[in-house]
């Protein structure tokens, strides 16, 4: 749908309900909580490089999710709370580029830091 100007956008296309709006209901969720929808948030964070791929994510607010949120909040200049506060949820729902912010768990969005010198590393435990 490419429009020469805003007035040519038909009203029926003025949809704003986006898949990521579902995350709003996770507001206030805290570590240890189990809430339907947290697995979808983990899928979102995995898509953009904040959580390693996993065959199945749970709805548990676990330490991996908290750590991923802290990295996300650092990258987006938000208060690093590790929690799903208003600011973080608002940022998560914004339209964005599909390229991950972290690639091969070692890139960083910080200015002047070439790739590979990253403060963001995944600590994974091999079983």
């Amino acid at each position, binding site marked *: *749908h*490419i*429009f*020469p*100007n*805003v*007035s040519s*956008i038909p*009203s029926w*296309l*003025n*949809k*704003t*309900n*986006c*898949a*990521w709006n579902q995350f709003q209901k996770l507001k206030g969720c805290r570590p240890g909580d189990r809430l339907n929808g947290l697995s979808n948030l983990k899928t979102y964070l995995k898509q*953009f490089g904040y959580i390693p791929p996993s065959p199945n994510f749970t709805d548990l607010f676990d330490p991996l999710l908290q750590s991923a949120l802290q990295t996300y909040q*650092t*990258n*987006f*200049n938000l208060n690093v709370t590790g929690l799903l506060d208003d600011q973080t949820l608002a*940022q998560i729902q*914004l*339209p*964005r*580029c*599909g*390229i991950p*912010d972290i*690639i*091969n768990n*070692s*890139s*960083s*969005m*910080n*200015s*002047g*830091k*070439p*790739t*590979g010198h990253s403060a963001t590393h995944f600590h994974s435990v091999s079983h």
Partner: protein
Amino acid sequence: YSFFPGRPTWPSHRRHLTYAFAPENPLSDEVKGVFARAFARWAAVTPLTFSPVESFRTADIRIGFYAGDHGDGEPFDGVLGTLAHAFSPPSGHFHLDGDESWVVSGDLRSAPMAAIDLESVAVHEIGHLLGLGHSSVEESIMFPTITSRTRKVDLAADDINGIQELYGGNPDGNLTPPSTPSPPSVQERDMSRNGAA
């Protein structure tokens, strides 16, 4: 600014890059002009030059609008959400979500909430095609998110520093970027008002 792992760039003997549009996307000259302007913004600050060609198969950069699953493992998700993605050099793949309401020009202030400025997203994705990753600097073009109804097309110092670290500056000095044909969006007006720009 940041780079992709391994810091991929276009080879040093490749300073002129061609681009083409997917044949299944019949685009107007006005729409093609948006991409020409977006490429010109990066050309203004680097030794790189860009030109459109007819052959989609042989072009360095291949631009297409696709909906949903389009075969690269990164399906699009309909209105808003993921808008587009473009891959690191020398891949040249540049995909835009065909389900978005892309606006070519005009005053975004009265636009519906779902309206997305095409040139803003094009400038960002071209940064990826040239080797830049995402940046935490909010006023930079390479900041990953954009609010709908927002026009954000001017390269920030962070973008210029990053791309010139990869390719060097424009041998003629940083040229003035192409003029922006439409009045400023809400964000640009607010930014200029509080001097953040």
